[in-house]
């Protein structure tokens, strides 16, 4: 633990970049002003499978302002080298833009039009006539053949089920969801000779850098990726999607910088999604509610060219002390684009099924749903026998039950009414891994006593600018307003993708390490400097606070960074630091949540409205309470969407996505999210990482949907196992 006093960390700081954002000065990917930029618009396939039979671009090419139409017929062959620095599923063959005539999903980019104005490019794109030899496509998870399963087993689940006092068997179906960030994906690409620079919407500048290098066959050092602001992503910007390559390709072909922004409609085609699932769950328990066996059989969609995976088996292995578990997960290859991790990936889908089933069991046995969960709390991780670093789920439920008024509820389903509305409450557990990745940072203190800290990380919404500023400020003993944190540039010290909630733990620890080094450097300089009031003091006895180096216990003795640097004719001090997570840990590390929901269901019309939600989280140390609060609220909103509204609809006759817009793909609006509250347990997890944080951004979404579904059951006595829960299921 740091000897430094905690001041900025834990303070309810407002976003440091907030003013830039609300005044429109923050530049998102498509907003960078690049001299001489021209515009690219992608033409998408209107079949899901087949071959391009003909392309007629004559009309498009005669439009004023049109510079070029690029298709597989004239696109140069690209290197498409293997790229180890990628989040693409292993073993697949990533989509190669304009390299052949194959169409593998509806909406696949098949051409790009480049023009001097956006309008000209858009119109010309409409005029490109493409004909296809369409083949019969299959896009329906139900009934399509699956790959070989991946499995897990402990104990003997079938046998234990056979002898269980209570047996339940359930089938769940979860719809495909799209990330739908507010900001569309966009890229600006510019070549300077054989060096490429792109401004991109991404959660991983280093990943984009390496993918572009691999695709164009150039050294990674020749590619620079810049992404200072990201208007939400929820996972969709973790990969380098085809449009990024297209922008760079187009820029090279026309010899000018090219801007390419996807339309909202195109956002449903090739930037990933949470896959649809079929989940069968069999559960055995004794009469006292001790679960003895669980059998999970999962199926989810993937593309034919990549076998997508996500961590959908973990919860089934470690959430409850179940001695006998068997799991299998199969991917079903379809004529669709590849999914990509969406907030709470894998966990969120699994949690809906497991936590709905636990609720079923609670009612079956007449045990309070919280009590049932506590009876199955493990003392150590049942999947590997490791101790938990911290697991305070009991406390989450205790605090939550009190705050929510849980014990006032009448447990009988359909027992509470308010006019035309049936009222119900439900709970569920949320849990997510503590991921950590290698990260580096750079820090500098200038002669004026302010600091700049950098890392090639991202801020897709969680508030990384702010939270890193807080960590750095405390480690340097500066006020937060004297620290500037910079991110989003591949030339900065490398950082992991902003996914799997690893940024705070990884980059935060690297920032801490870097700033610790920098502070110690300054302290060393002072205590060894005869001109310093700190001369001769033991370096360990010096702390820095408010920009002043001073003796612990004798605050009068000290000097400021400015004084120190001025006397040493220094303009600045710099340090580099890093975080390297251990390969193996003795501990099992997860964040936990107790989710509570109250819903009203119109008894006759089948409408479900969330009345209030409460989340209580064991997420380790909270660096930034305001940011943590917005994360939790955002997670609940996402979970409400998943539970009640979100559903990407595919027309399986031709693989078309029917509701590829935000009028038909419903997400919650303000009226759907009335009263959402978050409580974080005070504490820290020193096993997890040097700054004591656990994961948070994914955790807050997991368990929301089942808490709502469980509340719907309590309200109505109807168990809905398909998501989203819509009126037709409740009429």
């Amino acid at each position, binding site marked *: 633990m740091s000897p430094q006093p905690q001041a900025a960390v834990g303070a309810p700081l407002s976003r440091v970049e907030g003013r830039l954002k609300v005044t429109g000065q923050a530049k998102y990917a498509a907003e960078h002003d690049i001299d001489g930029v021209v515009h690219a618009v992608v033409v998408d396939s209107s079949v899901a499978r087949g071959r391009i039979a003909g392309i007629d671009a004559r009309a498009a090419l005669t439009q004023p302002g049109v510079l070029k139409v690029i298709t597989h017929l004239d696109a140069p062959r690209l290197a498409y080298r293997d790229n180890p620095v990628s989040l693409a599923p292993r073993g697949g063959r990533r989509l190669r833009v304009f390299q052949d005539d194959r169409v593998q999903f509806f909406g696949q980019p098949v051409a790009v039009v480049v023009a001097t104005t956006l309008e000209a490019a858009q119109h010309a794109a409409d005029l490109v006539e493409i004909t296809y030899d369409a083949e019969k496509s299959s896009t329906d998870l139900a009934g399509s053949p699956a790959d070989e399963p991946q499995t897990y087993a402990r104990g003997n689940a079938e046998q234990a089920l056979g002898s269980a006092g209570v047996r339940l068997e359930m089938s769940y179906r979860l719809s495909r969801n799209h990330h739908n960030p507010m900001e569309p994906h966009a890229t600006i690409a510019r070549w300077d000779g054989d060096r490429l620079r792109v401004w991109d919407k991404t959660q991983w500048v280093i990943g984009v850098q390496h993918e572009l290098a691999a695709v164009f066959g150039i050294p990674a050092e020749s590619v620079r990726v810049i992404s200072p602001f990201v208007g939400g992503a929820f996972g969709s910007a973790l990969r380098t999607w085809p449009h990024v390559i297209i922008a760079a390709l187009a820029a090279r072909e026309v010899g000018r910088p090219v801007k390419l922004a996807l339309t909202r409609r195109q956002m449903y085609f090739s930037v990933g999604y949470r896959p649809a699932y079929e989940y069968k769950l069999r559960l055995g328990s004794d009469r006292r509610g001790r679960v003895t066996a669980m059998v999970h059989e999962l199926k989810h969609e993937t593309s034919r060219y990549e076998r997508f995976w996500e961590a959908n088996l973990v919860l089934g292995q470690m959430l409850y002390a179940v001695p006998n578990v068997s799991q299998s997960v199969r991917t079903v290859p379809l004529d669709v684009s590849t999914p990509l991790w969406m907030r709470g990936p894998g966990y969120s889908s699994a949690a809906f099924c497991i936590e709905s089933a636990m609720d079923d069991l609670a009612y079956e046995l007449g045990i309070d749903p919280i009590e049932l969960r506590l009876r199955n709390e493990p003392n150590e991780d049942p999947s590997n026998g490791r101790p938990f670093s911290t697991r305070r789920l009991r406390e989450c439920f205790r605090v939550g039950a009190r705050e929510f008024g849980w014990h006032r509820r009448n447990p009988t389903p359909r027992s509470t009414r308010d006019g035309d509305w049936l009222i119900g409450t439900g709970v569920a557990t949320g849990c997510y891994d503590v991921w950590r990745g290698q990260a580096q940072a750079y820090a500098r203190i200038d002669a004026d006593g302010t600091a700049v800290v950098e890392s090639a990380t991202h801020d897709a919404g969680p508030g990384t600018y702010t939270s890193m500023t807080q960590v750095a400020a405390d480690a340097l003993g500066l006020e937060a307003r004297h620290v500037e944190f910079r991110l989003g540039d591949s030339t900065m010290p490398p950082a992991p993708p902003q996914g799997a909630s690893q940024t705070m733990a990884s980059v935060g620890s690297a920032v801490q390490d870097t700033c610790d080094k920098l502070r110690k450097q300054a302290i060393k300089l002072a205590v060894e400097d005869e001109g310093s009031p700190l001369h001769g003091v033991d370096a360990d006895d010096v702390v820095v606070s408010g920009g002043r180096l001073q003796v612990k216990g004798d605050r009068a003795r000290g000097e400021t960074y400015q004084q120190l640097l001025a006397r040493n004719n220094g303009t600045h001090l710099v340090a580099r630091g890093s975080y390297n997570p251990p390969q193996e840990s003795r501990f099992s590390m997860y964040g936990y949540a107790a989710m509570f929901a109250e819903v009203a269901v119109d008894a006759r019309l089948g409408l479900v409205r969330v009345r209030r939600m409460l989340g209580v989280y064991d997420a380790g140390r909270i660096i930034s309470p305001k940011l943590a609060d917005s994360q939790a609220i955002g997670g609940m909103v996402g979970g409400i969407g998943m539970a009640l509204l979100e559903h990407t609809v595919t027309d399986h006759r031709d693989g078309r996505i*029917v509701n590829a817009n935000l*009028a038909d793909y419903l997400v919650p609006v303000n*009226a759907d999210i009335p009263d959402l509250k978050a409580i974080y347990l005070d504490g820290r997890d020193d096993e997890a990482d040097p700054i004591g944080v656990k994961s948070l951004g994914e955790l807050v979404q997991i368990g929301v949907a089942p808490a709502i579904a469980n509340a719907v059951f309590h309200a109505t006595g109807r168990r809905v196992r398909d998501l989203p829960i819509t*009126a037709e299921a409740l009429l």
Partner: protein
Amino acid sequence: MYPFSFTKAAGTREALEAGRRGGRYIAGGTTLVDLMRETVERPRTLVDISALPMREVTDTARGGLRIGALVRMAEAAAHPKVRTLYPVISQALELSASAQLRNMATIGGNIMQRTRCAYFRDVTAACNKREPGSGCAALQGYNRTHAILGTSDHCVATHPSDVAVAFAALEASVHLLGPDGERSVPFADFLLQPGDTPNREQALRPGELITAVEIPPHPGPLKSGYMKVRDRQSYEFALTSAAVALHVRGGVIRQAKIAVGGVGTVPWRLPAVERRLTGRRPSDALWAEAAEGAAEGARPLTHNRFKVELLKRTVERQLRIVGGTK
């Protein structure tokens, strides 16, 4: 978007002249521009009519109300006369779209808006409305939000407007001005069922301009209201909706006017339900009995079967909300 030219008409005559030459009127632009972006609409000339003198809500000599075609949705909803005499109109408007849209969108544009059928709006899909003879992708496709009443084998798209449902219930008429002069069309005849010409949506002649919607006088007291059922609480088109207006005197329903939305290819009047109510005393049993007939003649599709039951329940609920009891 296809290239187009844009002119702003200074007055009615100029607008009509431009309309006669094939110009397309644009009022608030909240839906026409969307459709142009999707290339569903490809007008060559837009004629901005926003300067035309059609922005008033006025009393008619007969005791009704005339709402100018350019009155914004927000203005119409907030108008004191509309609010007190015809809450069903205010409610239908306020449950429509979003505050921003209602501040831009006009009453004329609202009743002219085209269906939200996703296949209609996707130019790569078959749609007889957009491209006569190309087929109807919705018929066997994803049709959860589609119509169960007034459909044909050529088209099953709903008319999406909320306020049009209120207008239909109140037996409004649409005032038109064209090259051949003025005329007025009953609301029931203004919006057309698809039949085998789903591309013909309104009884509007080429170049004709909507100048106003007129609500005829109704015997007072008239209680009315609009209910909209949808997946989310706000900002969504109706799954089902009901506009109900009841004239109750001496404890007896003397007149009932009911139209429903979200279920028909046009706003759908329910004369059979109205008949069952007329001359009877309000009661929960009556609401249920009358609403039983709400979905008569319904032809549900694969994904919208639930609308049959939901429609009956919507009507029953709204009868109670407007007519009281329980």
